[in-house]
């Protein structure tokens, strides 16, 4: 299979973006919703290609692609989640944007570029390519977040997102630079092998610093406490379909990368035996996100902000899943992603897109104040929208028989199985946090169903595209809750593929790596030997540079172990 065909799902998205840009010029004013259908169709084609071509791991042949992109079930599953969120967001935007007086096709092409970046992000294994994917995804979103040019809230949302996203990118890059300094490679798989092998030339400080920097950077992107403070403002100020996309697709992509990076690096012996391990960091973020997200969610009055805090709390549950790694089948000693996490992200993404989607269809022009009293009586005034809100919010809350319940139950169960000796208190905390969350989820439904409408209740926008999207959300949420079999299997194979290059497992870490390591003595940076070239065939100097020291020529892993 040629490389172009292998990469066609991502290329189809990029092409969709370009096509929509061109069609935008030919489409007259007031007929732009047509472009939403083109975008959604492009995403659907891309998704069909991904389903067809990415079922099994695909090898890329071009030398500049191997070791840069990895097409495996992990990437395929999250590509599916991203594309699904993208389709739904495009359809919702078709109804929402004309109502808000945004008559431009650029929203759809930016959405397509953002999806392209997100797909690149989840299939990248080269750290610079990963950064490029993150930036392609984010740059388009910064513009989309500020899409309502007439609204001062939108400009503020765009600025906040850009600044904090920029800081997160800088932290990520510093982490990448540290890893490059420690290992001399930018290929995540090769770095994972080198670190697992634990050669003498690897500076533990650099690796530990890189781990912290990367967790901070990706913590921003998944909106984990204490890196969450941009989330409610950006979610509130951005156009609601864009918010739906951010809460669904961006979180899924960020979690895919977080899991892959952390799990691939975590096998490094230099990370073992620290006072604060990587797992402790993830657990701390998880607990903070669950507690702070749910408690602050209670005191909100704007439905968009309630859902933003709900999204923070869900990041907490998911981080608990990332923390509770499970062992890789057929490779004892290698930890991979908990098999419940991808499924949870799928169920969460559908439900949150649905909830924001209902809000998008309530946004009549100029009256986008979505405080709780304005949705009062929604269930009677617009029964279909009310039903979609009911299903989505109950799925987020985790009530049976919806997808969110099964995902949460499965997640907590798998966390307990993966870490039976340590997980119990944290799972109990997560269950308690879910109970607290019920308060604000049910509060939304209380207003929607049991309160009398006030003088100026929010009116629905009629529209075929948005109705179709919400119908799809309801059906998918029910299917995930009632017949999840195939999705659970896909989730499991995605999780098993999360950790890169497990084949090169090397001897376990020395017992006291930190105390005895002379390179940790402050003020005396160790002379780091050059890496064996066999480790990385792409690692060849293009120009004469300082001569390498002759030390450490032993091969750490078998060549071509990738």
């Amino acid at each position, binding site marked *: 299979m040629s490389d172009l065909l292998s990469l066609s799902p991502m290329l189809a998205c990029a092409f969709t973006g370009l096509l929509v840009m061109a069609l935008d010029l030919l489409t007259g004013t007031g007929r732009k919703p047509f472009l939403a259908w083109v975008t959604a169709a492009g995403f659907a084609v891309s998704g069909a290609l991904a389903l067809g071509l990415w079922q099994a791991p695909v090898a890329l042949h071009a030398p500049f692609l191997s070791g840069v992109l990895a097409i495996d079930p992990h990437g395929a599953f999250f590509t599916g989640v991203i594309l699904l969120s993208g389709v739904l967001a495009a359809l919702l935007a078709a109804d929402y944007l004309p109502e808000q007086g945004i008559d431009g096709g650029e929203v759809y092409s930016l959405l397509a570029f953002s999806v392209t970046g997100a797909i690149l992000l989840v299939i990248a294994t080269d750290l610079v390519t990963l950064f490029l994917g993150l930036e392609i995804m984010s740059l388009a979103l*910064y513009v989309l977040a500020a899409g309502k040019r007439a609204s001062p809230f939108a400009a503020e949302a765009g*600025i906040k997102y850009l600044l904090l996203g920029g800081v997160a990118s800088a932290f990520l890059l510093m982490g990448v*630079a540290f890893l490059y300094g420690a290992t001399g490679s*930018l290929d995540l798989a090769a770095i994972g092998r080198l670190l697992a092998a634990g050669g003498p030339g690897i500076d533990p400080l650099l690796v530990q610093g890189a781990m912290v920097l990367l967790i901070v950077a990706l913590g921003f992107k998944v909106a984990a406490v204490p890196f969450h403070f941009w989330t409610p403002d950006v979610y509130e100020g951005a156009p609601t379909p864009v918010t739906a996309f951010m809460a669904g697709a961006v979180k899924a992509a960020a979690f895919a990368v977080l899991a892959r990076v952390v799990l691939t690096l975590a096998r490094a012996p230099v990370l073992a035996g620290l006072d604060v391990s990587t797992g402790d960091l993830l657990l701390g973020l998880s607990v903070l996100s669950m507690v702070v997200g749910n408690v602050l969610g209670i005191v909100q009055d704007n439905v968009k902000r309630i859902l933003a805090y709900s999204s923070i709390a869900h990041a907490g549950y998911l981080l608990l899943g990332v923390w509770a790694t499970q062992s890789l089948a057929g490779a004892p000693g290698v930890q991979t992603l908990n098999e419940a996490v991808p499924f949870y992200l799928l169920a969460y993404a559908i439900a949150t897109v649905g909830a924001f989607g209902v809000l998008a269809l309530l946004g009549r022009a100029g009256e986008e104040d979505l405080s709780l009293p304005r949705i009062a009586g929604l269930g009677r005034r617009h029964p279909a929208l009310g039903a979609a809100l009911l299903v989505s919010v109950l799925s987020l809350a985790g009530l049976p028989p919806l997808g969110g319940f099964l995902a949460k139950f499965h997640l907590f169960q798998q966390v307990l199985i993966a870490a039976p000796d340590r997980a119990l208190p944290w799972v109990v905390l997560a269950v308690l946090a879910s109970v607290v969350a019920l308060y604000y989820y049910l509060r939304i439904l209380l207003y929607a169903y049991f309160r009398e409408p006030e003088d100026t209740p929010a009116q629905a926008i009629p529209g075929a595209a948005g109705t179709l999207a919400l119908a799809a959300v309801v059906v998918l949420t029910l299917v995930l809750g009632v017949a999840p079999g195939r999705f659970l299997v896909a989730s499991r194979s995605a999780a098993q593929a999360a950790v890169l290059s497990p084949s090169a497992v090397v001897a376990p870490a020395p017992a006291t790596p930190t105390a005895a390591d002379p390179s940790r003595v402050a003020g005396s*940076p160790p002379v780091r030997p050059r890496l064996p070239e066999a480790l990385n065939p792409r690692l060849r100097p293009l120009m004469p540079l300082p001569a390498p020291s002759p030390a450490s020529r032993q091969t750490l892993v078998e060549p071509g172990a990738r």
Partner: protein
Amino acid sequence: MMDVPVSWYVILALILFGIGTVGVLTRRNLLVVLMSLEIMLNGVNLALLAFARHHGDAQGQAAVFIVMAVAAAEVAVGLALAIALFRHDGSVDLDRATRMKG
């Protein structure tokens, strides 16, 4: 030529990164904040270059070009957003851009 150890470059890079971080967090003028963001990225670039030289490898240098290109794109978006903010507020003061709270 006297050989400067790689750690010196990395320490300088970290100082630049720290200056940039403090700038982003404390300055209130959006343009200065964007500039601080650039300083952070330049710190990263210096670290990448130092490590590339240390390893005798060109990948790090190539990465620097990519980072520079992306940083330019980010600033382009940032300045466009600054104009959007200026149209609403009449200033690029971030303390004024706090309509949403909680």
